[in-house]
């Protein structure tokens, strides 16, 4: 009896796929299905434009868009545009991290000010800052610094708010231990508070980075200054559909890669913390 049950168990174990293999297979199937959906959609558009069911003046064939992207990559147009956009994002994000991180820490360090300014910060965060671009155009004229400044403003608010929240959420006992060990204020910040608050700070940085990217692209589009967003705007103004769709597709690819990388980075920070 026991022999029979053992053999049944062995057989079922042999036939039942291991959970990891099953999840990988499921992931593969889902990826294939996604690829299928995107391919079918692009195929439908290709045929619809080719047969002129949709005017080629307004929609370009996906193969034509691919050709424009390939040409743009070869002659260096798209790398240069992407470089300009990513430079603006980097400059804005670095400034937002320095100002927002310091601001968040100071607002935690001086709780009266933190409590007093919190509603104003939240109000500013929920207000459509990007709409202030005409003000910047008036002050700075048509200078690409506007793109960086508005990107900075979009990023600095979530970073400040979430840094303050993350440090405030560190258990009080950590601070008590630091004072028992007679750590200086700088040592306490570097060796106790910052590592403990890192997952929350990472969430703020992620949110700040994504807001910076979205605002930089939006400001580039509405002002016609800078990289990829400006290219979409210029192609639209000149009624060059293939160029516009190519710039849109390239922007989408860059944004997806960017968001994916940021998500992976945040996850690795949080996984690293939980392993510790």
């Amino acid at each position, binding site marked *: 009896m026991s022999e029979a049950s053992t053999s049944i168990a062995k057989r079922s174990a042999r036939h039942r796929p291991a959970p990891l293999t099953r999840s990988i297979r499921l992931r593969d199937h889902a990826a294939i299905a996604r690829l299928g959906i995107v391919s079918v959609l692009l195929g439908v558009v290709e045929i619809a434009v080719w047969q002129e069911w949709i005017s080629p003046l*307004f929609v370009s064939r996906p193969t034509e868009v691919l050709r424009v992207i390939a040409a743009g990559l070869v002659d260096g147009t798209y790398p240069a545009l992407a470089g300009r956009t990513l430079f603006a994002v980097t400059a804005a994000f670095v400034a937002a991290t320095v100002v927002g991180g310091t601001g968040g820490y100071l607002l935690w360090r001086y709780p009266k000010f933190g*409590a007093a300014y919190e509603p104003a910060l939240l109000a500013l965060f929920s207000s459509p800052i990007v709409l202030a671009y005409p003000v910047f155009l008036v002050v700075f004229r048509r200078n690409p610094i506007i793109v960086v400044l508005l990107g900075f403003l979009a990023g600095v608010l979530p970073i400040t708010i*979430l840094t303050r929240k993350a440090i405030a959420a560190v258990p009080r006992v950590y601070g008590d231990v630091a004072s028992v060990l007679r750590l200086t204020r700088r040592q306490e910040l570097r060796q106790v508070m910052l590592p403990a608050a890192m997952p929350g700070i990472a969430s703020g940085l992620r949110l700040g980075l994504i807001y910076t990217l979205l605002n930089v692209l939006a400001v580039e589009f509405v002002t016609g200054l800078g990289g990829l967003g400006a290219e979409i705007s210029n192609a639209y103004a000149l009624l060059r559909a293939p160029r*516009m769709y190519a710039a849109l597709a390239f922007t989408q690819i860059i944004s997806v890669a960017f968001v994916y990388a940021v998500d992976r980075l945040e996850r690795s920070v949080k996984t690293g913390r939980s392993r510790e």
Partner: protein
Amino acid sequence: MSSLQAPLARAGTRVRVVWGMHAIRIVTLLGLLSLWQWLSTFTDRFGEVVPGVQRIGAALVQLMSSADTYGHAAVTGKELGLGLAIGLTFALPAGLTLALVPSIRYVCEPLVIYAGAIPKIVLYPIFVWFLGIGLESKVGMATASVAFPVLVQTAGAAWSIRPIFRDVARILHMRPLQRFRYVYLPSMLPDVYTGIRLGIATGIIGTLLAETKASNEGLGFLMTHYYSTFRVPEMYAVLLLIFMVATLVAFSMDRLDRRIRQRRGSPRNAGVAL
């Protein structure tokens, strides 16, 4: 007597803290206004790029008393309202399907999330080409801006259904509609509402940005009209008005969100709770 003194002392401390916070806010506001006024006089020689506080205030009063402003505000409101209605009609059922049918969710969720990785305003040319420069393209823009956060948040709301609720529904042999009505919907409501709140916020931005890009009416158009005719105080006044309305809407929606979550006892998502 001592039992009375302790709460009184606590109340006194609370009053001092509240007054301290108000004092900080008032001093900061006065400081910012003085800085603005100083900048205004300092930049006067470069042209009127930073008008004085009184001039902006006067422009705001004039703007608020003009019937024309309310006409533009009504157009923006109409575009946003229609966009909201169409966006919700599409995004809520689509989000619920994503949330409740695991196979569709597994396949489509990354597509939806990554489709939302670009600012919707860059899609505006497509709306203009297909729907023209009038109201329709702005409604399309508002629809796209509203639909994405609602869709993503509704799809993500499936995580807020506690497994024990699903088990109880199964044990009670509830029919699919009963499960949806009595188990899934109440559990998902706070997250769905958060999606609607975010959708309205992004809808406001999408509509107004579209109006600034290519339009002939609406508050966004009014702002760019003042910009292009270099009527700077009026431009600041429109911007101030937009900020005040947007912040008011965001705060009232946030309060309602808080109330719904308190009633349901569900925690707020850190990213969304900002």
